[in-house]
Each structure stands twice: as C-alpha cells, then as structure tokens.
C-alpha cells in the first residue's frame, strides 16, 4: 500500500465535500432568466444550428446543404453539428449548446431516436431556444404543449412503407415471394415502414413475405443479408422491400453478384440520388421522396420566422405544430423530376413554410 498522498485525489475530495455541504437545489444557479421572449430578435442576432447524424451519407449531407442554402438566403451561417448516430453524443452537444447564449438560438434537429426527443425538447424549453424537430418523437409528446418547440415534421412511414409495398406487388405481378430488409429495429421509422409493408401485404394477398431481416439501414449489411436470403430462398424471391434506399442499393449489388440483376424488383425509401439513377436505369422499381434539402432548410426557416417575430407561435395552426410532410412515390415515370434536389427559396418565405403539410400527425 502506498502511503504517498495523491494530490489529485485530495483536491477532488475537497471540492466534493464543499459541494455536498452547501446543499442542493433543483435549478442551476447563475443562469440568466431564459423565459422565451416572443419575437424581438434582430435578423443578424439569430443563431442557426442544424444537427444531423453525420455528414457522410447523401441524405443528411443534402439536409445540411439545404440548411446552408437557407441561412445564406437570410445572410447568416448555419452551424453544423453531427453526432455520428450516437444518442448520448447528441444529448451532450445539445446541452452544451444550450449552456451558451440561447436568446436567439434556432435549432433544426434530427433526433437519433424517439427517446432522444424529450430531453432535447425539455432542454430547449428551459433555455428558451427555438426548436424544430424532425422524424422522431414519442407519440405523447406534443409541440403544442411547449412554447418554443415550434414544430415537429415527419413523413408518414406507414404510408411510404405501404406505397412501395404496393409498387413492389405491382412490379412482380401481384403474386410471388418477397423479402424485407428492416432498418435499425428500435427506430420509429423502421417500425412504421414495416407496418406499412404489412398493411400492403394484407391488401395484396398474392404476395408472400418469405423472410425479414434487419440490415440497420446500412448498404453493406444489406448486401450480406440479401446474399444469404437469396441462397436461402433461391428463385422464390421475386421482390425485395427495403426500409431505405441505402439498403435497396445494397440489395441491388447482391442481386448483381448473384447474377439476378433485373430479375428481382427492388424498392426503397428516401429518394437518394443513386436510387433515382437506379430507377431511371430500370434497376429499381420505386422509392419515396423525403426531401432532405427541404427538411434542412424548412426547420431553420420556421425557427427564423418565429425568432424574428414574423411568425407568432400562438398563431400557428395546431395542425402545423406536428405534421406529416408531403411525400411522393418516385417511379420510372416521374424520376426525372427528382433527379436534381433543388432548394426553392419561395418555400422558405414565412408565409409558405407550412405549404408542404400533408396532414396532422396522427
């Protein structure tokens, strides 16, 4: 046993003891009063933050690009935050961000999963930062209950899952076996989309789900899983339903390697450029557009409008506080329209920000 004192340990223990002696409180002291001040920010004072998982996939890269485009249109710069699909890192970044100056802070956030939304919302609400969230939130958490959580935007996963399911059924002529590639199992997107597929299967009784495996939204995993399933089910596989385009593209590679390119129909969701190209080239059957560029811009636009006072939270219709955005089934017929993601400044006018509402969140 070493008896030499450890200075570091001593300092830590002392500060700890001091802390315990002084008692506890429920609120952090020293923070300024941060009740949301409706409106009143000068355009130049607004701080725009876009947070997504990473910059290394096309969808989220286009999201950030959309955010940049909007910020430029109002003469600001978007701060980009990425958290590598790491829930804890996302929370840590948010809480660190909210520990700074939050007066005119506008955040357009893609929560990693449903469970990540509540603490973000709570933190933003306490700090008085304007928040727009997208994709993931628990059903019972509603923006309408909060002052600065302006809106939650998502796409109807059940609907898109069903749409591509139907497209797939049509493509294989209404009968035959298909396999499904699921996303990360504990995300709402994965579950909703799969629920959509199940609904579609009910409708198309000739289509049989041979197998379903998780490929975690990953192109590489989808490749391996598809190869395995192809050998397992052989020629019975007429179609592949993938919960996103990355997996669909992985499945396409697997088909090509198995010498079955073109013989099996593939559908996905997200309308990433590669998928659009594949659809145009006839390799893929269908996808559903979820416009990343628009998502990146619109979240900031809504927040900016509220922060600068051009829009009042109280005036926003209840249906617009949490809504499904319009999505489009992309097939060979209309693929050309989606080939180039474009940012339309008119979408971001404060009067137009809710133009793409397809319906209230159910």
């Amino acid at each position: 046993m070493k008896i030499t004192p450890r200075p570091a340990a001593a300092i830590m223990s002392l500060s700890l003891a001091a802390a315990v002696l002084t008692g506890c409180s429920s609120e952090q002291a020293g923070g300024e009063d941060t009740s949301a001040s409706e409106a009143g920010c000068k355009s130049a004072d607004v701080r725009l933050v876009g947070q997504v998982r990473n910059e290394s996939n096309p969808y989220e890269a286009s999201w950030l690009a959309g955010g940049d485009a909007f910020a430029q249109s109002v003469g600001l710069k978007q701060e980009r935050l990425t958290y590598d699909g790491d829930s804890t890192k996302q929370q840590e970044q948010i809480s660190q961000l909210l520990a700074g100056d939050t007066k005119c802070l506008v955040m357009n956030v893609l929560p990693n999963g449903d469970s990540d939304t509540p603490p973000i919302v709570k933190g933003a609400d306490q700090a008085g930062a304007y928040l727009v969230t997208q994709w993931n939130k628990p059903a019972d958490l509603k923006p309408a209950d909060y002052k600065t959580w302006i809106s939650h935007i998502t796409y109807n996963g059940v609907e898109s899952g069903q749409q591509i399911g139907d497209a797939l059924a049509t493509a294989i002529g209404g009968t035959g076996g298909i396999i499904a590639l699921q996303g990360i199992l504990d995300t709402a997107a994965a579950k909703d989309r799969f629920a959509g597929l199940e609904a579609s299967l009910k409708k198309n009784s000739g289509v049989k789900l041979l197998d379903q495996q998780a490929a975690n939204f990953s192109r590489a995993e989808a490749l391996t899983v598809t190869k395995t399933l192809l050998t397992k089910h052989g020629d019975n596989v007429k179609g592949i339903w993938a919960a996103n385009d990355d997996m669909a593209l992985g499945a396409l590679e697997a088909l090509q390697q198995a010498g079955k390119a073109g013989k099996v129909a593939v559908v996905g969701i997200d309308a990433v450029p590669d998928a659009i190209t594949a659809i145009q080239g006839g390799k893929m059957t269908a996808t559903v557009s979820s416009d990343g560029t628009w998502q990146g811009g619109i979240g900031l636009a809504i927040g900016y409008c509220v922060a600068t006072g051009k829009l009042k939270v109280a005036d926003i219709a209840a249906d617009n506080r949490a809504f499904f955005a319009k999505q489009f089934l992309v097939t060979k017929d209309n693929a050309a329209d989606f080939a180039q993601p474009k940012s339309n400044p008119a979408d971001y006018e404060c009067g137009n920000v809710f133009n793409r509402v397809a319906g209230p969140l159910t």
Partner: protein
Amino acid sequence: MTAEEVVTAPRRQSRRGASFRDAGPPVALIVIFGIFAALSPQFRSIDNVQNIVDAAAVLAVVTCGITFVLMMGSIDLSAAGVMGASALTVSLLVANNRNDNDFGLLGILVAVLLGCAFGCLSGLALVLLKVPSFMATLGVSAIGLGVATLMFAGVQPNISDAMLESWAIERFLGFAYLTWIAAACILVGWLIQRYTRLGRYAYAIGGAEEVLTLSGVRVKPYKIAVFTLAGAFYGLGGVMVTSQLGAGLVQAGDGYDFSAITAAVVGGTLLTGGRGGILHSAVGVLLVMVLTNGLVQVGVSPYWQGGVEGLIVVAAVAAAVIPQRRRNQVVK
C-alpha cells in the same frame, strides 16, 4: 560437482508441428457446420457454401492484417477508419460519377498505399509516442473516418470501373474474384508469417519482446512495419468493399474491426500475442461466417441473432480452451 538432473525423462509432447491445442477451432467449425447442415437443407446447398465463402472474403483480408498485429500482442482498432478512407480514395480514383479520374489499378494501388500510411501512423504513435496500440489505432481510426468524410463531401461516389466492379460479380470455379483475392491474401499472409523476418519477428515480439532487444534486434521498425502491413490489408479490404457495394462509403469498414478480432481470437490467436497465425484466423473467419449465415438460414429471429452469435462464440472459445486448462493459468 554434484549431478542432480542427470537424465531427462522421455518427452510426451510434439516439439515441432501443430499441437493438440490447435485442433479446437477446426473441430468447432466442423461441429457447428454439421449442426446447421442437419437443421437446414438450404444451408448445406452448394450455393450457400459458395455464398458463405464469398461473404467471408473481405473479413478474411481484414483479419489477415489484424492477425499480424495480434501476434505481436498489440491490438488494432483502426480497420473501420482505414477502410473508409481507402474506400473513398479508390472510388474517387477509378472511373466514377464524381470526377473524370480513371486510374484503374493505379487507383487501387494508391488506396492500398493510403492504408499503409495509416497503418504506419498507428505504428509510429505506438513506437515513438509510446501510446498503447489500443488507443493509437482508435485515434487513427477516427482520423481515417475524418479524412473519408472530407473526401465524401456530401455526394456518394459511385464507381463505374469495369474491372473493379467485375471483382464482385465475375466468378472463377464457382467463387467470386474477391474470394480468390482473399485466398491470395491468406496465402501471402501465410508466406510472410512463415518465411519472412517480418512475420517471424512479429511472432517473436508477441513471445518475448525484451529478448529480441537483448539479442540486438531493433524491434521498433518491425512494429511499425507490422502495422503498415496490416494497414495494407485494411486498404485492400476497403477496395473490396467498394467493389462489392459499387460505391465508396465512409462506413465501408463499420464493424470490421471487432469482427476481425473476434474471428482471429475464435481461430486461436491469443490477444496476448505469440500464438496463432494466419491459418488459424482463416478458420476463425469461416467459423464466424458460418455462424452468421447459419443463424439466418435456420430462421433465428433477427432480435436474437446477435445474442446467439455471441453465446456461440463464447462457447466455441470455451470448448477450445477446455483441453488446455491448467490450474494457475493466466487468463487476461
């Protein structure tokens, strides 16, 4: 003078070749293969066996690299980052949709060399900064991912290079070209391990590093060289993933670091170094792939697959070590 140990008793164990303890993993492989084959007729089909071997290609190449590092008693977690960087590099250098480059084989070579460079960086951090390999390679992995993200720049590069694409699609004697490349890597790896100073020293460093120093061997350059060699394998692995996916992904190497270590260890390479080798690892890779494939084939729920796989890996290693259990044995 007195004589105490005059006569040496007859020896029982073999002194040269493979010993009993090397038999564990192959036996486990055969047993697990047998179980799956009995459970699922699809599993034992020729197609599926081809599929398993093809699917093992990339993991085999990555494991070749990691095996050398593990033999030294170090560890390497840089595969994910290095593969990402090399995947992006190769996809931007061969014919692709992002730029007009069309360097073909040269591009592949550059990607492999980049892998070497990253490996070298890990080695330098270990040798010069004396950072344990666990952290050094973790840091290099992060750097690799960062470099890959820089090159990615928001648009996925899709390759259109006929040769690189053909690697994943064309077949020779029933197996994809990639599989033959992996087989070649295993052969090269084995030759390096058996017939070069680099390979033998890697093995010796794992056995008794201080002795090498005492014998006047400068260990440091060999350590760097081993990491560089491993980096080359990861670089090639990144190229192979790009060939399979038809696009350069930052996530090309996701998960390969831990799978490769698992495969190597399941094959009988010790994490403490000094034992095992390329052939052990090849068996380990097959074992892991048979497991992954077999679980899907017999229809284990996707929720449980990971768990069952973990359980079987632990059981396989346990079964392999039981014959050599001794009291007072050190297990880290």
